């Protein structure tokens, strides 16, 4: 035994079964053994303690309320993972409840974790990412949101981000935000277009936040002066930091108007400390999930963990508790030498959050495992300086983002991840029509080949009902075969 203290579940009399990935039916069956006391303990918005604030429910609950895709997925069988799933899946309702209990709802679009500490510093505001509703059509196996977006001019030639416009239009997936802080500039044009149309066609109040382009040093530059970020390895032109600080200051000012009270530097510092705590936990989980052998946490749950850094799924306090559970579980498994996948699973670095989450399951079913990721949210994994003035600290941290710089910077980040976790190959998932995918795949593949000598597979993820089943699985399977053959040859 590892000598670790009893988990919160064990204290209530619940013991996790031996680690495994299980299907939908088994995941629901395991739920029947969860004591009601644990269900009652897991609540969001703890300070409110309302009847509706529980979320520890099995996938069947969320499937019954429309998330049909859950039936097809495979799950980690730990209680911590169940809690994570419930917390993630309950976010939609959580946003409505936030409005009902008088919190201000601030949609942050496109900046992927930069402004949420500012929002969370307000105390009476909840930050969320409408961007994440691009997964809703997949969860629901439904094109309803795409159709709604099509009626407003975002048709099939656009990537799946258009689901977010559909959600703004329908107002049934999240309440109309009090404000939408929409990133533009070096962010994602698709989401900027969504915000523009939401502003123009649905009357959504939008505050535009310009993200500066991070130009990196080049051999032919002779006059440029650069500075390195406090935590991270990005270099940026010195003058863009004050620019981004000014942009954040404008966001702060607007938030103060919306929330009706000042947000002090002390509030910001506290929020930064909270964000860093969350980020440290996520980093610890990532390291084990992608590095330990055997794999102690499947990739789908690991992806949910990573995205928690953006905004804590609209309740950062409870999010920290959820992730602490996950970390404890993963640490216990790692120290006991237990995992959910085979020891010799082929290691693959994954680039781009897959729109179709089932692809992560698929990789694992076919004998692979995720060893490193680049989900375009790396800036929300970097720690925010607690020594600098808070706005400057937030700006400096955000300037690590891979989305705001060059393709080659992102490629180097991918290679670092692959190297760190021993990836034998790289899978890049993109979406047809996604504005930022234009040149990156080729660059990443080139750099990976030059620096690590590993191959890359690029997949454009279709909507599941649009392609024959098995088409993508065949490609992943073939890729894994190649990687296995290379491994065998190397060992020989």
């Amino acid at each position, binding site marked *: 035994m590892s000598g670790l203290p009893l988990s919160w579940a064990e204290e209530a009399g619940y013991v996790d079964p031996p680690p495994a990935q299980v299907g939908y039916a088994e995941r629901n069956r395991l739920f029947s053994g969860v004591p009601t006391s644990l269900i009652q303990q897991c609540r969001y918005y703890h300070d409110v303690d309302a009847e509706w604030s529980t979320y520890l429910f*099995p996938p069947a609950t969320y499937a019954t309320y429309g998330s049909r895709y859950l039936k097809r997925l495979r799950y980690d069988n730990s209680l911590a993972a169940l809690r994570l799933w419930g917390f993630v899946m309950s976010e939609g309702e959580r946003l409505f409840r936030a409005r009902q209990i008088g919190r201000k709802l601030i949609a942050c679009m496109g900046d992927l974790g930069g402004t949420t500490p500012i929002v969370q510093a307000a105390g009476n505001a909840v930050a969320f990412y409408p961007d994440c509703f691009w997964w809703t059509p997949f969860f629901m196996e439904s094109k309803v949101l795409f159709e*709604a977006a099509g009626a407003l001019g975002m048709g099939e030639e656009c990537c799946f981000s258009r689901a977010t416009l559909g959600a703004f239009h329908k107002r049934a997936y999240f309440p109309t935000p009090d404000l939408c802080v929409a990133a533009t500039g070096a962010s994602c044009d698709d989401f900027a277009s969504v915000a523009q149309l939401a502003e123009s066609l649905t009357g959504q109040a939008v505050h535009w936040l310009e993200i500066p382009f991070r130009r990196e040093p080049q051999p032919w530059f002779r006059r440029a002066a650069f500075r390195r970020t406090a935590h991270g390895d990005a270099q940026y032109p010195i003058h863009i930091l004050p620019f981004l600080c000014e942009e954040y200051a404008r966001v702060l000012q607007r938030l103060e108007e919306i929330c009706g009270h000042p947000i002090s530097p002390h509030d910001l510092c506290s929020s930064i400390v909270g964000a860093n705590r969350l980020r440290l936990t996520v980093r610890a989980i990532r390291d084990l999930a992608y590095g330990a052998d055997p794999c102690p946490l499947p990739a789908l749950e690991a992806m949910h963990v990573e995205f928690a850094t953006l905004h804590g799924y609209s309740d950062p306090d409870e999010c920290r508790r959820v992730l602490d559970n996950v970390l404890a579980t993963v640490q216990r498994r790692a120290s006991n030498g237990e995992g959910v996948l085979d020891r010799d699973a082929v290691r693959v670095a994954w680039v781009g959050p897959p729109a179709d989450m089932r692809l992560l399951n698929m990789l694992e079913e076919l004998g692979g495992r995720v060893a490193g990721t680049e989900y375009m949210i790396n800036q929300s994994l970097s720690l925010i300086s607690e020594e600098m003035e808070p706005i400057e600290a937030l700006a400096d941290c955000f300037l690590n983002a891979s989305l705001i710089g060059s393709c080659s910077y992102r490629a180097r980040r991918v290679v670092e991840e692959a190297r760190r976790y021993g990836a034998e190959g790289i899978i890049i998932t993109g979406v047809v029509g996604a504005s930022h995918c234009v040149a990156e795949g080729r660059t990443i593949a080139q750099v990976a080949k030059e620096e690590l000598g590993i191959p890359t597979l690029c997949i454009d993820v279709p909507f599941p009902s649009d392609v024959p089943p098995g088409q993508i699985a065949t490609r992943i399977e073939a890729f894994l075969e190649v990687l296995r053959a290379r491994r065998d040859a190397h060992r020989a």
Partner: protein
Amino acid sequence: MPSTPDLLNARERMNLLLMDERPDRVPAAPLITSHAAAVSGINVTTYCTDGAAMGKAHVAAYEEYGHDLLCLFTVVAMVAEAMGAELLYRDGHLPVLQRPPVGRDGDLSRLRVPNPQRDGSMPAILEATEYCFSRLAHLVPVGVFVAAPFSTAALLRGVEGFMEDLVDAPQRATDLIALATEATIPFIDAVICEGGLPVLVDPLASCSVISPVMYGRHALPAQQKLISHLHRYDMDVMLHICGRTEGVLHLLPATGAELISIDQVELGAVCAAVGDRMRVVGNVSPTEVMAGGTPDEVEEAVVRCIYTAANAPKGFVASTGCELPYHTPRENVHAFIRGVRAAGAYWPTARRNRFGDGAPAVRVE
């Protein structure tokens, strides 16, 4: 699929209601159960025994009417049958209880806790649930009506005998209800696993059959237990009690159900009594109005319901007092939906329009 001007679909509408939000309009959920068989042109026996046919019937009904809740249901005796009760199946008729398995001796040993995948018509209902879920659950909630333990117990014993037991041998009645509760739980678990939303139906608990005292002593605890179990899954539970319920209105919130579906009771009284704690569902007459009336009369009746109940604090779902008869004229069901759309709007017209034409096109600075 009927063309709809609605911005929201049924799934979105009901989800908002269940989160204490005002949806675009009052949901329209007439209790279309075996009437779905008529829409798809199959007889009730096939409907009750063939899961795929039941599923197809409800899909066909949804495509015909565009209502806001699927109502998968055969007969109240469905749990009793799975536990060992014998039903009589005759072509063109809903099955009826032929031989209750528990006699005057109260011997429960012949009863079994059913396996939902094998016993009675449970497998067919689960198959129909899966069928509807896989095709429609993104558009409309799939409600699955399940007999509550009190009604199941009554059918296991025979209604008359059970009524006698309630007075003369209450412990026997209590034991039978407990066993019925135990037997129902695996089935509702299976329904939830298939993606269905269990709706409890307890007709024999109504004031048309028993006194409020008996209700409080026997039916209510069983409902509470089952609803408490459903709350472990965060299910929003609809409790349907047909017949009269005015004598037990004050007890209904104690069941824990989130929605109360009523029949022969004044709608305004229900809203006044429980509307701040439960969502009220009902209650156009299924026989006199829906089956026997004209489309204009149907529309008038549903509009009256809406005017009475649309502003109930926890929300209102326009429905029928009980399930629609098989032969209900289709134009009447259409009239019901039409009436709800005409009178039941919560959002202003521009906002309800799916193309958003009412929204400002360009922001004026």
